[in-house]
């Protein structure tokens, strides 16, 4: 195995290497992380968007388990468990409760540009992210390095989600999705990061979720909407 890819026998010398089951599974899960983010970007309703985030987080937790199994990194089981509890359960519950309390589903997709343009821009950004990270020729002991390109694409699309959508829930979900992209990058680059540091990152995310929730409530309390179009008073 070299960088998560099986070395093939002499009969196939010269042909592209065949990915191992591990590499194929890992890449498939990484791509699932990116695809769910595209779905989040074009989701008009906020509740499905939150469910998509939970699905994306589930994929990230699964990826951590895949790395833990294949590379015998016991700490990653703990990380996957904490990550699952926080990102698949707690965060979606917190955001869904916010939506229930405010009763504001918005109904139509609120964005700075149309859906089709948004997806096209996201495609271009993810292509750029993928090839930019791929061009670094980073080798990883834990995952196929193509997963790093996918992580780069996920991070850029998360930025677009925050910039192009104009409601507080999508913007908060965009930040949480950014963290998922970084989690994938972390699994590629730093799977052996001390568990205490990883848990500190996740604890920090939990605190951020609480603060985002509080401020979103404050925003809704003052404006009676989750939309951010009204946030234009402070300029100059």
């Amino acid at each position, binding site marked *: 195995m070299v960088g998560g890819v099986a070395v093939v026998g002499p009969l196939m010398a010269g042909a592209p290497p065949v990915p191992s089951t591990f590499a194929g599974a890992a890449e498939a899960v990484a791509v699932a992380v990116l695809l769910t983010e595209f779905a989040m970007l074009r989701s008009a309703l906020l509740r499905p968007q939150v469910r998509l985030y939970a699905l994306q987080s589930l994929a990230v937790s699964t990826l951590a388990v895949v790395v833990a199994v294949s590379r015998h990194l016991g700490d990653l089981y703990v990380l996957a468990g904490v990550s699952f509890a926080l990102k698949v359960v707690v965060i979606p519950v917190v955001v869904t409760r916010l939506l229930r309390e405010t009763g504001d589903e918005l109904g139509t997709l609120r964005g700075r540009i149309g859906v089709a343009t948004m997806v096209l821009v996201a495609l271009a950004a993810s292509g750029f992210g993928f090839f930019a990270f791929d061009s*670094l020729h*980073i080798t990883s002991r834990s995952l196929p390095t193509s997963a790093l390109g996918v992580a780069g694409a996920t991070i850029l699309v998360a930025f677009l989600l925050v910039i192009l959508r104009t409601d507080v829930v999508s913007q908060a979900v965009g930040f949480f999705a950014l963290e998922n992209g970084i989690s994938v990058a972390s699994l590629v680059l*730093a799977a052996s990061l001390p568990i205490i540091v990883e848990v500190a990152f996740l604890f920090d995310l939990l605190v951020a979720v609480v*603060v985002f929730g509080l401020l979103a409530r404050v925003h809704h309390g003052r404006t009676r909407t989750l939309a951010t179009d009204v946030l234009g*008073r402070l300029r100059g």
Partner: protein
Amino acid sequence: MLIAVLAVPLVAALVSWRSRTRLAQAVTVASGTATCGLALALVGAAGSHVARALHGWLRADALSVVFLVATAFLYAVTAVFTVGYMGPDPGGSLRYSRRFYAGLNLFAWAMVTATIVNGLPLLWVAIEVTTVVSALLVAIDDTDGASEAAWKYVLIASMGLGIALLATVVMYYAGSSQLGPAYQPFYEPLLGAARHFPPQVTRLAYVLAVLGFGTKMGLVPVHTWLPDAHSEAPTPVSALLSGSLLGVSFYAILRYYQLATRALGPAFPRDVLLAFGVASLVLAALYLASQRDLKRLLAYSSIEHMGILAIGMSFAAPIATFGVLLHVLAHAAAKATAFFGAGSVVRKFHTKDMDQVRGGVGSLPWSGPLLVLAVLALSAMPPFGIFRSEFMIVAGGLSDPRDAVAAALVVLVTLAFLGLTWFASQTMLSPDPEGLVTGEVSAWIPAAMLAGLGALVVLGVHLPGQLAHLLTRAAGELGTVR
């Protein structure tokens, strides 16, 4: 001692959460003073050796202590100012008071922690905590402006810190090329191995770090949250945000700068800082001239000074690096003093709109003149510390091959000076309007301002020997070793 530095503000936060206003105020002042005393006690020791605690998870070298002193001093004077500014009944309720004082102490704790934790991942965690706590403090007044500023702040700063987290991960990967796949990401092993880090990966980590932590530092073009948050937060929070938090974020960048200069040589790290620094200084100088909101004016002045810090680090001369570190201390004292004066004006005139403020010096017999002096200090007038630090930065720049940058710096600082002095002449030194009631809002406010200006005079006229030694050693830690 490091454990005490960490524990005191945290205990103060917990006590304030359950206390009545008077007790919370007393605890906050005591905690600020004690933390400042502990930080100053570290100055002498840090000039000769590195302090450690908690099995190496806490570490204070000279660079850490410079930023710790700036943060702790600001914590102390802000605590004193807050007693006068908030009064005996802040926000009209005990609930507000408890939230405010607990938040203020927790915010100071997070900033203090950032300066003494050992390693890039924990540094990131501490700075992220500063974001979430300070965002709640920005929103605490529950106005339309505060709500908008807090949302923009938490969103933009968190996205920036997301980039900084990626930088942390990428730098960990760079370290693993020399230290093995699993290692404790403390500073010392990283600094020891940095010269063999893969250049391309280190370059990526460094740029991501400058962009990410630069968002918190207020570097242009990722500064957009800063004027809103500084102007809408309660004034004690504005002072801490501007004088301390921006500095702590700069400290994080310097930690990456240390690694990058060892791995890549000095040219690339300096060029990156130069680009952000020039952009920040140009934009701030232009915006300073057009501000009508007193606190936004000071916010843009902060962007200007962060630009000066970044440009100063881009100069090769050691005197410029010394000047940058001195500037961190002097800017913290000057900006806090100016915000305290602005708070006094806001309380007196019930507005931040400079067009509606006239006769500031006449109506505020102490804090009015002190605010004018603070503005002059921010404009790099002698005998204050910023004059000395900017003089050293420019002197370093003129000895650099890129001396045109030093000349541009002088021009842009002069532009900023014009913006600030316009404010002083229009609002503070204008004739007193009819029926003006003379008197201070509270004696605590000028007391805090006197402490800030006193520190500025000391930094400008006679730098204490131990502090000078500390700054020299910290500048040495930032020097290129290759």
